[in-house]
């Protein structure tokens, strides 16, 4: 749980259990080909992390739907990036 987790506690989400809206196309590309792995630092919600085996993991529960990860991953285009289903995901109270 990165430090940002504390920040996301106040946000309102409706998690689409079992239907993450962002998926890694091929995890090996992250480990073998991508030297930059900007997603690990750029995501404002800290949704990207490295697991014990050095694979990038994405958890879309706290996603703020800004789109930064998709743009910085353009080099390898390794993200299957979509909006969540209607009414799901972040639901801003103030915006």
């Amino acid at each position, binding site marked *: 749980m990165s430090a940002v987790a504390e920040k996301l506690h*106040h946000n*309102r989400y409706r998690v689409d259990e079992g239907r993450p809206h962002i998926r890694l196309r091929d995890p090996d590309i992250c480990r073998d080909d991508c030297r930059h792995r900007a997603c690990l630092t750029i995501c404002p919600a800290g949704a990207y992390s490295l697991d014990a085996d050095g694979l990038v993991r994405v958890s879309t529960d706290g996603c703020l739907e800004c789109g930064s990860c998709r743009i910085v991953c353009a080099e390898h285009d390794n993200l299957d990036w979509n909006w969540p*289903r209607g009414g799901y995901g972040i639901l801003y*109270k103030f915006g």
Partner: protein
Amino acid sequence: MAMHSVVCIKQVPDSSQISIHPETNTIMRQGVPSIVNPYDLHALEAALTLRDRHAGQVTVLTMGPRSATAALRRCLAHGADQARLITDRAFAGSDTLATALVLAHAVAMLHREQPVDVVFCGRQTIDGDTGQVGPGLAGRLGLDPLSYVVEIDSLDPASRRIVVRRRLGSASQTIESRLPCLISMLEGTNQVRFGSLDDVLRAERAEVPRWSAADIGLDGSEVVGLKGSPTRVRRVFAPDPVERPTQRLETAEREPADAAAILLDALARGHPELLAELVGAEVARTGAGRTGLSC
């Protein structure tokens, strides 16, 4: 034979978003949206599933202010066929007992329009009321109350026989009953469906009729609103913070077994009774018992 189900829902504030200002202890209501009481969505899905099997009509009903129409529209968008809003200044402040009375009159009116076979309602609301709407409706309308229902096993419209499965904590019952009956679903048993585009378009275009107290035959003789509610909230206050002594055990560079022993010692000194319970030993209790947990 088409079935007519009536689903009673309630528009509630999303209590998970309510927070208390740490210093002033005031309730911060800004940005707390209204939603359909989540328990009621399990009831709506059960009614829609019933309609899938036996055809017929699903009516959603709520008592509340004008703005509660939004909650009804969301239920139409999930696939309900029609909606009714029961709204009247006289109802302001009703607790669950008074609410059940108003809804009973509304269901009776719907019954005259088209006979009602099953009344569905959520077990309770998330703002934690006492879950009396179900029993209240059943009592007022002479319906058999079937609560904590997990699944409707079978329903025979001709013989009016219905078999449901319910779960009460550690026991699961299969119950046979007669229509008309009242069903409140155990939460988590189903997931309300994602409406079709036609459902959503129809929900936005639908005209939601409003009924007043007089429209449903409540001429003021029955007691509703605040005076009809037996309970009164005396005061609302912040719980005193749980002062918990925190202690860091010195286990640096110790073998796991030593560290474990250190914890057991600490428990033996600080919480002997708990340690006794953990190891299953009967330690003569001093009758002190644990003080009530403050929330």
